[in-house]
Structures are given as structure tokens and as C-alpha cells.
């Protein structure tokens, strides 16, 4: 049982469910199953590209005047990179919390360290997030 298992089962799981439930309360379930699958794939295979993917999806939603969908991709962006005080929690903040003072001071290797932590944290977070979204969608269709 590794440290990431403990984190994945704790804060990452809790935040994925809490923040998604809050979003659904406000905006419903605006994205399709296929988009959720795409989100999960990118989170697992290319976590560093996720922010860009979310921004691209947001722009598409904006062009189609889909406000709730735009809000969803805003959420994803903020989950990846939200900063205090506007965003109490984000994966960026969680990852920064995982770095020691020594690691933060090592400018040469800091970017690589952050990438390493992203590869650890993004997959379990988005696994929980996407599974919970599909569950909420199934409950909406089958109350």
C-alpha cells in the first residue's frame, strides 16, 4: 500500500465527489458519456495536456452557446489549476503540498517533479470524478 493509495482513497476521492456534486447541484449533467471517457483517457495518458483539452472544449461550448457545458470545462480547468483564495482546493495545490521545501528550492528539477506528481494524482482523481459523473447520470436517467 503506497502513499498515493492512501491519498487516492482519501482526499482525492473525497474532493472528486464533493466538488462534482456541488457542480451538479448548480449546473446539472451537461456533458455526454463520450466526453467523460475522453476526459478520463487524457487524465490517465497525458495529464499535462488536460488543462489545454479543457480549454479547447470550453471554447467549443462557448461557440455553441452551451453555458452549462462551458461551466463544466471551467470546473475541470479549476480542478487542475485553481489557486487560493478563489479556489479552496485544486490538484495544483495538492501537488504543491506534496513537495518538500528542498524539492521546491531545486529549480532545475522542480518542473519534472511536478510532472511526476501529476502522473500520480491525476489518474485516481479523474477515475473517481468520471465514475461519479456516470453514476449521477445513471441515477438521473433511472431515479
Amino acid at each position, binding site marked *: 500500500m503506497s502513499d498515493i*493509495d*492512501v491519498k487516492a482513497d*482519501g482526499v482525492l476521492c473525497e474532493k472528486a465527489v464533493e466538488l462534482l456534486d456541488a457542480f451538479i447541484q448548480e449546473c446539472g449533467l451537461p456533458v455526454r458519456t463520450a466526453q467523460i471517457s475522453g476526459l478520463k483517457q487524457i487524465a490517465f495518458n497525458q495529464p499535462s495536456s488536460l488543462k489545454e483539452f479543457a480549454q479547447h472544449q470550453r471554447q467549443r461550448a462557448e461557440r455553441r452557446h452551451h453555458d452549462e457545458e462551458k461551466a463544466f470545462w471551467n470546473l475541470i480547468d479549476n480542478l487542475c489549476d485553481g489557486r487560493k483564495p478563489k479556489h479552496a482546493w485544486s490538484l495544483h495545490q495538492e501537488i504543491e503540498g506534496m513537495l518538500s521545501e528542498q524539492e521546491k528550492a531545486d529549480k532545475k528539477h522542480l518542473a519534472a517533479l511536478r510532472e511526476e506528481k501529476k502522473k500520480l494524482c491525476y489518474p*485516481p482523481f479523474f*477515475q473517481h470524478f468520471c*465514475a461519479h459523473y*456516470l*453514476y449521477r*447520470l*445513471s441515477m438521473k436517467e433511472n431515479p
Partner: protein
Amino acid sequence: MSAPVKPIPVDTDLYIEEHHADFEKLGDRFFEEFEYDRKNKRVSSQVRNLQQIVCSATRFADIEDFVKNQMGKTGDASSRWKKVGKETLQHLQKLRDAAAKDFEKTPNAREELAYRLKLARSWVRAVVSHYLYRIALDQIKEGP
């Protein structure tokens, strides 16, 4: 000042014993919704998959995610999961809550996770045992 006393870990078997009737009810529901392959005498692959996930998981949330993902799919298996999934997730939440309660006074995330997983394995053993018992009764009723 005396050293703090390490609490005696709660036996998962005791928890399972106290809630066994509830687990049997879920086993009944699994039998009603997933049935089994009567012709080839094979248990439902969905029940087998759940058992496999629970026994191999290193994260409790992987078990919850399995159920949620199955509910979110389309197809025959998913339609069955939609009928028992919510109840299954409620069971899993109770296991989470039981573990959290036992570690409330002496928090230790790693030990709590290990305990949650141990509870889950005992839980699935009880549920699947009852599901298999229902299959056995059905086969006795059906005759040779």
C-alpha cells in the same frame, strides 16, 4: 504522565457478524438481478468481477468506482447494476463510515485504509456466499 494507550483494533469479523443479515439481503438481491447461467451452472460474471475487484483492490474507492462505472454503461449488465448498484454503494459507504468511526480517536490514514479493505473483503465474502447459497437452493429445486 503515562503513554497513550493504543486502542484494540476492532475485529472485522465482529462487524460482519453484526450486519450479516443485511449482507444476506444484498446476496438475495444479487441473485434476483444477476441470476446465474442455469444451463452451464456458472455464476454471474458481474458477481465474480465484483468479488475479484474487492479481493485485489489496493484502494477502497476502486470498488466504489467499479460499481459506479457499471451503472453508467449501457447494455444488459448495466441495466442489472442500475437495480442493485445504489444499494451496493450504500453498503460500501457504511463500511467506510464504520472504519472512520473506529479510527476517529487515533487517526492513521494508512491503517484505516487497510482496515476498510479488510472489511470490504469480509463483506463481499458474506454477500457472495449467500448469493451462492441461493444458487444451490435453486439447483436443488430444479432437480438433476
